[in-house]
């Protein structure tokens, strides 16, 4: 076995030759280990120095350490060159950036869910909390308690789907025709101040067409407190229209009749399409009706045990599908519940 250590020059010529031959990161690492590693040739040489005589140690130490520096520099340059070459190869392998990315299936909420939420959020911003009530309802809450007794002509405003089930022959059950029963339900169990919105499905015995569905979503609003007046109702609903449809929205109020409010009104916004000029969407009127409202009838407040001389309130009911038709420019209300994915995936 050759115990004679390599000479510096021998190591240098072999190292430089091998470095030039290292063609990739792995062989370069092998090279580093074989010369500069813990058991590398140069490392062994330098480690043998203490055993040498002082004179020899000095000479060999200086040239050995100089070589170490050169090899380390050479390693670094070679590493960089190889890395550059590797990146150049990736760069030269161009991909087609116009190919689509791999699809990630996207779930969506139904446009009526989205619109309902947006509307509730607008009202939440004005202090209205969301509560809910039953869809299958007693005649009492849907009609009687709202001042619409049996055989009242106003019943024609709400064609009703009746449940074939009567309790003690007296309390007919129905699918609620509007969310207004919740006015009574909430007032029965709460004291003023009240500020609620009640979303939910309603049902009408009605033939369907482009603007009528037999199942619809309504949001009922109710505010009862001391000092609430018609101007508050106007302010609240005008603010609702602006927040939902834009700041430059114009709102108009006209007299209407609902037995559970007095005074009663209907609210329209200026037509989106024609901005009030008159077009097909607004039936050439320039205005589109979006909701019915009014001051809660004092008789209803009194029935709830509130003193109508002290408390006043307003109520409103707005059809969500109507709002969705307008904001999305949908031309037929029946699209919403036909659940065609080609329609639903647009929202």
């Amino acid at each position: 076995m050759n115990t004679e250590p390599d000479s510096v020059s021998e190591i240098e010529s072999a190292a430089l030759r091998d470095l030039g031959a290292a063609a990739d990161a792995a062989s370069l690492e092998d090279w580093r280990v074989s010369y500069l590693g813990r058991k590398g040739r140069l490392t062994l040489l330098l480690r043998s120095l203490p055993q040498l005589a002082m004179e020899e140690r000095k000479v060999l130490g200086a040239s050995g350490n100089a070589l170490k520096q050169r090899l380390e520099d050479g390693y670094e340059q070679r590493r960089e060159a190889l890395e550059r070459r590797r990146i150049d190869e990736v760069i030269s392998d161009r991909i087609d950036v116009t190919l689509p990315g791999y699809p990630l299936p996207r779930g969506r909420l139904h446009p009526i869910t989205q619109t309902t939420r947006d509307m509730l959020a607008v009202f939440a911003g004005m202090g209205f909390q969301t509560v809910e009530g039953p869809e299958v309802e007693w005649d009492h809450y849907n009609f009687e308690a709202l001042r619409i007794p049996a055989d009242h002509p106003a019943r024609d405003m709400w064609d009703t789907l009746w449940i074939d089930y009567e309790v003690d022959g007296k309390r007919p059950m129905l699918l609620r025709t509007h969310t207004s029963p919740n006015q009574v339900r909430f007032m029965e169990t709460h004291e003023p101040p009240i500020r609620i919105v009640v979303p939910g499905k309603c049902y009408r015995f009605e033939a369907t067409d482009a603007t009528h569905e037999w199942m619809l979503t309504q949001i009922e609003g109710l505010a009862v407190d001391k000092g609430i007046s018609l101007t508050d109702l106007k302010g609240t609903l005008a603010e609702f229209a602006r927040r939902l449809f834009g700041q430059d929205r114009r709102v108009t109020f006209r007299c209407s009749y609902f037995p559970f409010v007095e005074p009663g009104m209907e609210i329209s916004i200026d037509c989106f399409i024609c901005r009030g000029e008159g077009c097909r969407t607004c039936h050439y009127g320039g205005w589109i009706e979006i909701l019915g409202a009014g001051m809660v009838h004092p008789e209803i407040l009194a029935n709830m045990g509130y003193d109508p001389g002290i408390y006043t309130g307003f109520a409103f009911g707005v059809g969500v599908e109507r709002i969705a038709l307008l904001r999305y420019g949908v031309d037929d209300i029946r699209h919403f519940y036909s659940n065609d994915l080609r329609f639903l995936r647009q929202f």
Partner: protein
Amino acid sequence: MRVPLRWLSEYVDLTVDTAELARRLTVAGAEVSEIVSTGSWAGVVIAHVEKVEPHPNADRLVLATVDIGGGEHPRVVCGAPNLRGGQKVAYAGVGASLIGGHDGEPFVLKAARIRGVESTGMICSEKELGLSDEHEGILVLPDQAPLGQPLGSIIGDTIIEVEVTANRPDWLSIVGIAREVAALTGERWRDPTLQYAEGKKSAAKMAKVEIADKDLCFRYIGGVIEGVKVGDSPAWLKDRLTAAGMRPINSVVDITNYVMLEMGQPLHAFDYEKVRGKQIIVRRARAGEKITLIDGSRHDLTENMLLICDGEGPTAVAGVMGGGESEVSAETTTVFLEAANFLGPSIRRTSQALKLRTDASTRFEKGLSRQLPAIAAARAIHLMAEICGGKPAQGIIDVFPGVEKDRRITVTMERLVKVIGLEVPNGEVRRILSSLGFTCRWLPPDRFIVKPPYWRTDVMIADDVIEEIARIYGYDQLPTSRLAGEIPDFVPQPERSLRERVRDAAADAGLQEIITYSMTDMEGLTRVLGPEEMALNPPLRLSNPLSRQFEFARTTLRHALLQTLAHNMRGSQERIGLFEVARVYLPREGDLPEERETLCAVVSGRASGRWGSPTGEQAGFYDAKMVLAYVLGALGVSADYRDSVDFAFLPGRTAEIRLGEDRVGSIGEVHPRVLSEFDIGQPAAMFELDIAALLPHVPEGVHHKPVSQYPAVEEDLAVIVSGDVRAGDVIGAIQSFPLVASARIFDVYTGEPVPVGRKSLAFAVSYQAADRTLGDAEVAKQRGRIVERLKRDFGAELRA
């Protein structure tokens, strides 16, 4: 209510254009839904027929020379049998727009040769002018029609259609609309003439009236008019009825209809000679009574129906329709006129029961003024004298048990401000109320005493008066303000909040939300629910469903998901994931049904390849479970799954979802039998969650656990167990060890070299302690215990 403007203008001057009139009425609550104009016949003028000569080449045609004024005398070919010399007719010149007499299509008139003779223009039929379908002959105009003037100057009209709300029966009359127009335009309205000359014979001696049921009939007026000649009504009257949408019948009946349209009070004319016993009794029907009405229909009457009877029996259904026997005919010479007032709800109930909604019943049901019968009776008698040459008897019979006290309503300024939020000036309040016919007296210091006019049966309380002030003042003129009071206490709605989180999670998991109808057919339910479930929750049925398809309140959402899936497959195998969150309706004895918020989801179709082509595996149990776990994970819960059996799902691929002791839902691959019933030709997997059952298990918020500062040791652990061992149980066992931070299954393997009937389960186990670095020996000890436990509980052997 159809309101012809020519007629309306008899009672009020129309000082604004029609569009503005319609706008003001609409804003005030009388919504104008349609404006129809007839009478813009360009190029059609009033002509005088000067000469009628035979056509040289056709027996049925004639040549008419007409004078159209301005020295023009065109000659036209005409085939109308009623054409005579000297008539005034409607002449259309070349270029006029008309309606085809045969095909009903619009056309522009051109000069033409008819059987060899040049025809310059045309004499028009009603159909050609779009007035009616009459095409047998030409339209003959009154002799005094002004020659050469546009036809539109004497006929044609604009009709506004007013949607009358249930509280305003007074608006179901031309006079009522005229009053509103007057208030809205600052004009005065004119009341119709009521005067007539009475004869010597006393009405009271000619007939007797008795109201037996005073709770249903508040007033009954009988008038007697002798010497009536029943015939065709004059043209003006027929035109007005036609314009308002009614068909002329004979002069007496037309007058009763005319006064109803004019004043809003339905009237009925009997042939006095056919009123048996010359007596009228207003009473409830008796069991077994029947009646044949004017329209020929025969009805069995029930005891809550109010009748008009004569000395021998029923002669009319009160407020709904008259009977055939006492009907006015051409032979009638003496008329007994009825003007009455009935209880609205009773009339409505009767008309609904008989399925007869008449112009009379729709007015009576809304509650008419008890003053109105006297005024309307006078008006009708006036017209019968004028038009039919009738001789009114002296006086009328007026039985009036329901006399009311005048309504006096106190409206304080304080209330006005409280309700509408604005102090309308005192003078303005009085101006508005008097323009509507109210009398209004200011009682200092702070209130008005208001008396509504007789026709305003809807105004009962101060707030009703305040609405009148507000609507005429103009809602749009009122300021806006913001709610000023305190915001009420927050009321948590945990189930609603959870339901919305479930919705979000399901959509985040890549599913499309759908909303389907709450009603379904029995078939939809029985396809997805077994007989026991159907028996447990028999669905509520509608008594008047829109169609058989929507007859039952659904007790599940499954059928809706499968129907929607089927509709959306369109021959593609694309992976579709759908969900719905909605209520199901579970009947309860003696109460409203329980409305249970439910999530149902379905996945079907092949997994997509790199760019979405459906090339991968068909959706199965684990695809549905992936979504389910995502949803539950988003809520912070993890469920246990137990093998179960479900009518709609494949045995062996069905599980119930449990949280603790509660069953919160089910999951499974849909049974091929069910799929084929929905026409779905590929596998589908489905799950349902009961949101209320989930609620108690959902943590209220996230509670942070400190992250361990010490490294975890990751190891794989593979065991061979019997094929029927449930992986979930094994994972549960591994996770129960204190040093196990997590255990995840990464492989299930059967086949060589694993013995038949057994399987290999491979887990990635992570060991970690919160307070120290685990040494090799400690991990090995824990692993040994785990293996021991798996051996004991599951017969597991460590896989080499």
